[in-house]
């Protein structure tokens, strides 16, 4: 096969010339992507669309760096379980992992489970000059710092916004709701069960707090009061919950107490929900006529505000280094590759929202997406704050405490009593787990 070999050699040469060309335009001379050649690193990841893209790109990464990546992926819950086991065992077999810093960040940081990226970021030999950290949307970049240290790099960007059925709104002469009261009024008009439910949201124990938190903050509430007490049973929180529960119990679907993200997405895809407030990441699937009954019939808008204005939720998966890894430089090269401008633009154009500014500014892509969704997304991302998960060491436990309370109120129990009981439990957990100031 000499012919094939010559072609390969030619391709390799062309590749080298191109690489040289890039390097000469760089600021600080040639960046050495091959510095950790021959290493093998292991990545533990949550199963997600981005892991599919990474997997498909692994040969490309191996060619660029000479690093072999073992990518192990699991569904979210088993993934978290496996990760906790490996990190608590100080496993040297693990080099990097995906993490949701706004959820488990405090707990992980306190346990010493994040490697510090700051020295690597400041080392020109370790970080490519092309990998422009200033290109990340500031809110998202900063959300991945804890105690002045960069603990991870975001790989997606999410905020909750309003999706509504434009066709139904137009037919009823309605405008998209700007406030939660308008949302309630619109839900009332468009609620024609079982064909269409006015408003569908997450209500499942572990998922309810994510959706409910938007209402909490829109009412001017917060997870914690100014004097450090649980903020989930303040008058603002009770007001927010009463409306949330009233809207869902009156204009929601019968599965409301069991709804997770898949159920909410399915109801909208099937044309059974007039409105949802959920992650901006679903625009792609909603517009895909092979999967969606509402392609071309929906529009996006800013998440409705409440009496206390509007806070926009921030969520992202990110990549972090294990502090017990002995191959951190190689692992850091993978992070740079997975979050490079080229990769993020590529992912973005396949309808998966990215935390890089440059990915959002591509005019050709912008012309193709739903304009209401685009405007709301860009505006919200720049202002987003991590409110969807309780910002505590014991975040998962408090999520469950609050989730069970909301779940119970959605099933008809008294709002004030449930929130009071939950606040009491939450205070006990905080007392035990939060580091004393």
């Amino acid at each position, binding site marked *: 096969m000499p012919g094939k070999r010559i072609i390969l050699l030619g391709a390799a040469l062309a590749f080298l010339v191109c690489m040289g060309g890039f390097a000469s335009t760089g600021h600080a001379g040639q960046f050495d992507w091959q510095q950790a050649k021959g290493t093998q690193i292991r990545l533990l990841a949550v199963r997600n669309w981005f892991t599919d893209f990474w997997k498909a790109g692994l040969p490309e990464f191996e060619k660029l760096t000479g690093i072999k990546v073992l990518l192990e992926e699991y569904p979210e819950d088993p993934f978290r*379980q496996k990760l906790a*086991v490996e990190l608590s065992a100080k496993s040297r077999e693990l080099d990097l992992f995906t993490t949701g810093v706004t959820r488990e960040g405090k707990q992980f940081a306190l346990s010493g489970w994040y490697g510090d990226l700051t020295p690597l970021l400041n080392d020109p030999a370790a970080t490519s000059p092309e990998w422009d950290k200033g290109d990340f949307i500031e809110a998202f970049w900063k959300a991945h710092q804890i105690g002045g240290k960069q603990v991870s790099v975001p790989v997606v960007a999410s905020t909750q916004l309003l999706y509504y059925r434009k066709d139904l709104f137009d037919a009823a002469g309605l405008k998209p709701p700007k406030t939660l009261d308008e949302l309630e009024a619109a839900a009332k008009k468009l609620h024609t069960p079982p064909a269409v439910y006015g408003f569908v949201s997450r209500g499942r*124990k572990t998922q309810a707090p994510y959706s409910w938190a938007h209402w909490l903050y829109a009412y001017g509430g917060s997870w914690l009061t100014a004097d450090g007490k649980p903020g989930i049973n303040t008058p603002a929180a009770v007001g927010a919950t009463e409306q949330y529960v009233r809207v869902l119990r009156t204009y929601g*679907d*019968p599965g409301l*107490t069991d709804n997770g993200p898949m159920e909410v997405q399915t109801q909208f895809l099937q044309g059974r929900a007039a409105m949802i407030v959920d992650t901006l990441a679903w625009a792609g699937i909603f517009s895909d006529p092979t999967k969606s009954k509402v392609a071309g019939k929906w529009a996006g808008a800013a998440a409705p505000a409440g009496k206390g204005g509007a806070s926009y939720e921030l969520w992202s998966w990110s990549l972090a280094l294990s502090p017990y890894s002995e191959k951190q430089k190689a692992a850091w090269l993978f992070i740079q590759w997975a979050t490079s401008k080229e990769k993020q633009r590529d992912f973005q154009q396949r309808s998966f929202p990215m935390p890089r500014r440059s990915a959002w500014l591509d005019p050709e892509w912008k012309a193709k997406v739903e304009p209401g969704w685009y405007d709301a997304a860009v505006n919200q991302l720049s202002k987003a704050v991590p409110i969807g998960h309780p910002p505590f060491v014991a975040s998962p436990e408090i999520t469950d405490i609050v989730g*069970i309370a909301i779940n119970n109120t959605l099933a008809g129990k008294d709002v004030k009593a449930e929130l009071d009981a939950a606040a009491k439990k939450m205070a006990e957990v905080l007392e035990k787990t939060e580091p004393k100031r």
Partner: protein
Amino acid sequence: MAPGAGIVRRRAGRPLAGGLGLSRWVDRHISWFFVLPAALFLTAVVAFPVVYTAGLSLFQWSGAAATPPAWVGPRNYADVFAGDPGFRNALLVTAYFTGVSVLIEVVLGVGLAQLLNREFLGKGLARTLLILPVAGTPVALALVWRNMYNPSNGIFTWFADLLHLPPQRWIADAATVVPSLVLFDVWQWTPLVMLITLAGLVSLPTDFYEAAQIDGASPWQVFWRITLPLVRPTIVAAAMLRFMDSVKTFDQIYVTTQGGPGIASQTLNLFVFDQAFQYLHFGYASALLVVLFFVILAGNLILVTVRRGQV
């Protein structure tokens, strides 16, 4: 095989071993060496985790590298029994789920085994179809059932509609979630009870039945007076298997409801899972596991008593 092999060793070793004490000792105790690998393996994979869990249950530990486990003595156990409402709820839900599902599975399983223990056309096909659920992957099946139970899109809702029944919310309603899970469990595991019972029925001696026929016993009498007493040990064995499995059911419930709505379907095993891997209370979770172990042990002791025919 062990003694025979030992003799071979001894004969072959005699001229060489001569007066060496160690070699003679090895020869004399050779049977132990055959058991040793299996014993070591069992110690590593069974005994060690059990001892480690029991030990960890006396500590408070969040799994953090920065903070080592802290000795708290029996406090975790005190917390469990001093009325952790989550634990109490989990105990009740587990008893409800296990009690109802095992009872239905045993009754239906024995009935089905009776039906299949006679010759009819398509018997093999019926048996194969009936054991299909046992062969399924629990998580995949659970996802399917979760979709079937969806109150607005699920097939059960469609059936209920067809029969003009009032709309049900299945696993989305605290009152119907455990029965819904029981239905799923019964569908999946009744065939196992049936298979085990069928094996017992096939091996029953025929002379009792002949005697009964001569005496003119009715089929009902034959079943109650002959079949059931004879096959009881087999049924109890099947019930015991189902009981142990049912108490520690995890995947089905986790995938369909995650213990919800609220904590209405949070069994002991799910409660322990949350404590350990969601909240990282490893010490407390270990104490709960030790308690769960004794719950299963107690249940089995009761069943063993039944099997010996004392009840």
